[in-house]
């Protein structure tokens, strides 16, 4: 029995997925021994955020076949909402430092950003994607892609027009001493951001795997006609998927407000990174996206550490292009070609 598992494990290691995960872990361990554990902490925090954005992107791709270019703008919406909710809360807590809001205030802000993200996703579906879906005849993927390009430009400039181009940031969510683990000091915000990301990703995975609605979403992503035949309400699933995807992106923006202050183009960096993840890990694969998020985060952190800030677009994108040449469907992707290849 154990021999069987052993050979299975060996063959997994030899596959592209296993190989890349093992290499990632080894590189992460070696780098953090060489330069200090803060590398690992940065990777984990960035990876957690990226996992949220990338799973949303993957969901949109897998279920709706929309290559979302405006996903970073929902990140921006989330951070904006969190800023405007958290500012009055922090004013209140400055006057009453003993109230219970000090602990729960940030969570309220993040919840607000999630809800607003979901609502804006629904609005986008009702105003933009729905009409296109009803009118689209062919070439849906490319048309919807260009549509999201337009949406992205629109949202960025609406932000600039309405709220101004200045940085809307906060000092931090949870004040207090940083937590120290083995001589590494990590600010509480970072710890909480990672915890929130982890909880949400696990919940989301649970939702997709075990609930009826999650199964319906997966069914739609595999075969729309088949899903319709077994009685799944496509419209409802589509609406749910878009709001979920946008909420995931928005909560990432909300929970990282202390790192990324809200300004019009704040979403571009997470967007680029999320696209790296999605292309690297193969389209429509949620678990793969989570693993890919940590790989890309590690790449970014290592690049910044050893080569210098600013190179973090050059090296990862070069590496991803290199991988794509040899494995066009991504590391965790299957070789089945779908609607997205057209």
């Amino acid at each position, binding site marked *: 029995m154990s021999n069987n598992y052993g050979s299975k494990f060996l063959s997994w290691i030899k596959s592209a997925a296993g190989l890349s995960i093992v290499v990632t872990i080894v590189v992460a361990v070696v780098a953090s021994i060489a330069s200090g554990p803060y590398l690992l902490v940065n990777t984990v925090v960035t990876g957690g955020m990226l996992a949220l954005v990338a799973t949303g992107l993957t969901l949109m791709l897998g279920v709706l076949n929309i290559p979302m270019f405006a996903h970073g703008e929902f990140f921006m919406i989330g951070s904006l909402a969190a800023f405007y909710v958290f500012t009055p809360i922090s004013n209140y807590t400055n006057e009453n430092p003993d109230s219970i809001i000090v602990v729960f205030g940030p969570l309220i802000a993040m919840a607000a950003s999630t809800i607003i993200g979901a609502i804006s996703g629904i609005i986008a579906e009702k105003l933009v994607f729905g009409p296109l879906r009803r009118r689209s005849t062919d070439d849906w993927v490319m*048309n919807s*892609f*260009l549509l999201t390009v337009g949406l992205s*430009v629109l949202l960025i400039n609406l932000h600039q027009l309405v709220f101004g181009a200045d940085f809307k940031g906060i000092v931090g969510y949870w004040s207090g001493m940083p937590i120290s683990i083995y001589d590494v000091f990590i600010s509480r915000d970072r710890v909480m951001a990672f915890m929130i990301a982890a909880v949400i990703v696990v919940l989301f995975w649970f939702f997709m795997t075990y609930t009826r609605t999650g199964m319906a979403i997966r069914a739609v992503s595999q075969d729309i006609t088949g899903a319709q035949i077994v009685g799944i309400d496509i419209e409802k699933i589509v609406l749910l998927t878009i709001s979920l995807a946008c909420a995931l992106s928005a909560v990432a923006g909300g929970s990282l407000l202390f790192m990324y202050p809200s300004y019009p183009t704040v979403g571009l960096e997470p967007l680029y990174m999320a696209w*790296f993840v999605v292309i690297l890990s193969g389209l429509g694969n949620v678990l793969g996206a989570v693993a890919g998020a940590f790989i890309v985060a590690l790449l970014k952190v290592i690049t910044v550490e050893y080569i210098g800030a*600013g*190179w973090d677009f050059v090296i990862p994108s070069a590496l991803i292009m290199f991988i794509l*040449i040899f494995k066009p469907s991504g590391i965790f992707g299957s070789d089945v070609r779908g609607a997205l290849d057209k």
Partner: protein
Amino acid sequence: MSSTITSRQMNPFDKILDKLCLTPAGFCGLALLFVLPFIPPFNQEYMLRWLIYCGLIAAMSVGFDLTAGYISIVNFGYAAVSGFGGYSSALLVINMGLSPWIAMIAGGMTAGFIGLIIGMISLRLRGIFAACLSWFFGLAIMGLTIKLVWLTRGQLGLRTPRLFETDSNVPFYFLIITLLFFIYLACKWIVRSKMGLAFQAIGQNMDAARTSGINPVYYRVMNFTISCAIAGVLGGFYAHFYGILTPDMMHTSKTVEILAVAYIGGRGSLWGGAVIAFPFIFLMEIVRSTLSNLPGLNLVIYALVLILVMIYYPGGFSYFYDTNIRKPKNKALRYFFNGRA
């Protein structure tokens, strides 16, 4: 365009127009562009600068449409490739003392080389994957330009000599219009030839094209090379017109600008983007300069137009023109809009 009348019956004027790939309406439009800098509201220098920018975007959208409209791959790193051409041209002038004119062509060649590479590495990818790959390529080029400060001066911007030693914008305007026309002509000739047929076949159904004996490797790489070479020459024009190059010209938002114009103009038509760029970009510039207390409003309008066109009229202006304007009852008008061909 299938010609119903054989070339024997055509008079010389029509024959020339046909060789130039223009309808009488197009000819009039071109003539209008050439006299535009002498017509009163447009003869001011700042208006001419806008018009030059319109011409640049128009020419870019023609080159972009050769890839997007014919082999159905959106080259999302188009602005970056163009910037690469511009930078290599500028660096050749600065470091090797080449004349800007030769350097512009050299810039086009280097950009064509980049196109060759993009075409090669994206061969196994289709649709959105290929678009993403060219996008990542563009991001990588832009990142390199920002970081290679010893060569490109990074964000500080690279000062470049201009093509003409005058303060007037008029020669630049004529140059860009000529460039626009020749780029259009080159693309149209390519599209009319056997190669163009192969492009369309690959764009519509790659497997069917391969079955009927078209080598997709050759044609796809060729298409990328040509389209990127055009971008490179235009990048060289940009460099030697504005006199300063910053990595911002490689940004994805520039590609989006070109893409929006090309798609609003109508994909697969080549002329649609060129026609729509002039009124559209010009209006945007007016909005931007008159309502400068509302920054970003022009881009909001921009995006709204793109969204509305994508939803309600995905064929763009050229489709509207073909279905509504092109077939009037009046015979003279019909000749005016269609030519003899």
